[in-house]
């Protein structure tokens, strides 16, 4: 087994892809985002609830896709619960750097998300890792109602 593959598909990632956490729908969601990666057909349906202060109170997802996109969504939902908008945006930037920048040191603030670091060796898989994050970014921008987002600019 190559070390790149071992790093990409760490046990934590395989576990989250097989048994994704926060998988489901929030019936009383404030905003729902349907994200897709047209290059590979991966889809995510994200539902988000905010608390009184505008922080992310609850977040769930459904969808289908590769192990990377599923695990990334699962890990993301665990990480973002209770975070403020500013914290979410900060985390998005940090995560994007983690999966794209070869010199990135993987800051401790990312916690479990650091297991996604191996994606940086596979540039074609960055969009898989970012799909859920693009959806949450859209959810914050939208604030309420329904929205769609794509990893490909249209």
């Amino acid at each position, binding site marked *: 087994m190559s070390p*790149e*593959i071992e790093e990409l598909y760490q046990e934590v990632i395989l576990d989250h892809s097989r048994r994704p956490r926060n998988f489901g729908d929030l019936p009383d969601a404030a905003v729902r985002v349907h994200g897709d990666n047209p290059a590979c057909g*991966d889809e995510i349906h994200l539902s988000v609830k905010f608390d009184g202060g505008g922080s992310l109170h609850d977040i769930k997802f459904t969808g289908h896709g590769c192990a990377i996109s599923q695990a990334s969504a699962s890990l993301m939902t665990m990480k973002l619960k209770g975070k403020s908008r500013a914290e979410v945006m900060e985390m998005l930037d940090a995560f994007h750097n983690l999966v794209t920048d070869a010199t990135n040191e993987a800051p401790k603030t990312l916690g479990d998300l650091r297991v996604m670091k191996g994606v940086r060796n*596979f540039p074609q898989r960055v969009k898989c890792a970012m799909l859920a994050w693009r959806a949450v970014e859209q959810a914050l921008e939208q604030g309420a109602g329904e929205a769609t987002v794509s990893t490909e600019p249209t």
Partner: protein
Amino acid sequence: MHKIATSDVDWSVIRKDFPILGEQAHGHPLIYFDSAATSQKPRAVIDVLRRYYEHENANVHRGLHELSSRATEAYEKSRQRVADYIGAVRADEIVFTRGTTESINLVAQAWGGKFIREGDVILLTVMEHHSNLVPWQLLAERTGARLRFVGVRDDGTLDLKQLPSLLTPEVKLFAFTHISNSLGTINPVAELCEKAHAVGALTLVDAAQSAGHLPIDVQELGCDFLAFSGHKMCGPTGIGALYGRGEILDSMPPWHGGGEMIVSVTLEKSAFKKAPHRFEAGTPNIAGAIGLAAAIQYIEQIGRPAIFEHDSHLARYAAERLTELPGMRVFGPTEERGALVGFVMDAAHPHDLTTFADQYGLALRGGHHCNQPLMRRFGVSGTTRASFYFYNTTEEIDRMIEILDAAVRFFS
């Protein structure tokens, strides 16, 4: 039991004609199973490209100097070679294009723009590559024409029982693929052309997956247009051809304007050359055309019947061996198939599989293969595809099975 020996071609010698097949990928010998996307190139083609640029390069048709004569002669000889390769009556029935996609767009714009009216019907199939779908959607939007689709049965073949109700007199064109790039289905082109002609429709055959794999004779097939790409049949990228029956090409207006395609130009208007030059505005891909002719010469030395026998055997062998793996779903017909096999596995998503395989030097393709409607038809977002050419071997397929088996264990 899986011998490929009925023809007397020594495939191991042929394989050595392809320098790239000696490459390593991630420290493993390359196993190239993505020839349906683009084939590899034999030294004969690479050498011809080099020789052209070293000894013949000039612009065509206009220069009065020696090099331009050489380039023009080589370019037009290539056209004749393409015509002969597919059984066209004359070289004028061959338009050089960038490839299958451009060939189809040419027909949609030049022929469709003139002859398609509101209420007319373009008949397609659910298995079409986006390149034989999107140009017709654009045409339909422009003209008010309607699209209809022949369905695909569970076994990957066209549902021909639907034809009588779909092929009505409003159908002006039936455009369909010869070999499905996801399923490997080989469509009954001659039969489909005959039925289309019976209601007065013209036919266009997408031969992207067949032109380099099996003998094609447009007279026998009876098609009006045939489109294919050079790069999937040992030729360079950026060159392909459109065959159009002579009187039809002559009836079509130009689509791109510019140099090369005119007889005379005034400030207000122009007179255009006859086909095929009327459709080749600007400096063409001269080296590409010459490279395509070299690829054709190379393929013909081996012989298309032998190539088809070898390729389709590899595909059947692969399909059969894949079913040994757990949680495997193989798409497409079992009896007769083109040189590819698409599949999905319970254990892993196509993108995870292809990433995994790549680490062992195995080049597969995962995704929708520009077949989104077909993927939807089969209820999947994508498949993994292994596609073959005559330089591939059963040993490579055995290795693929080992690698996929390792993937099953890794991902489940």
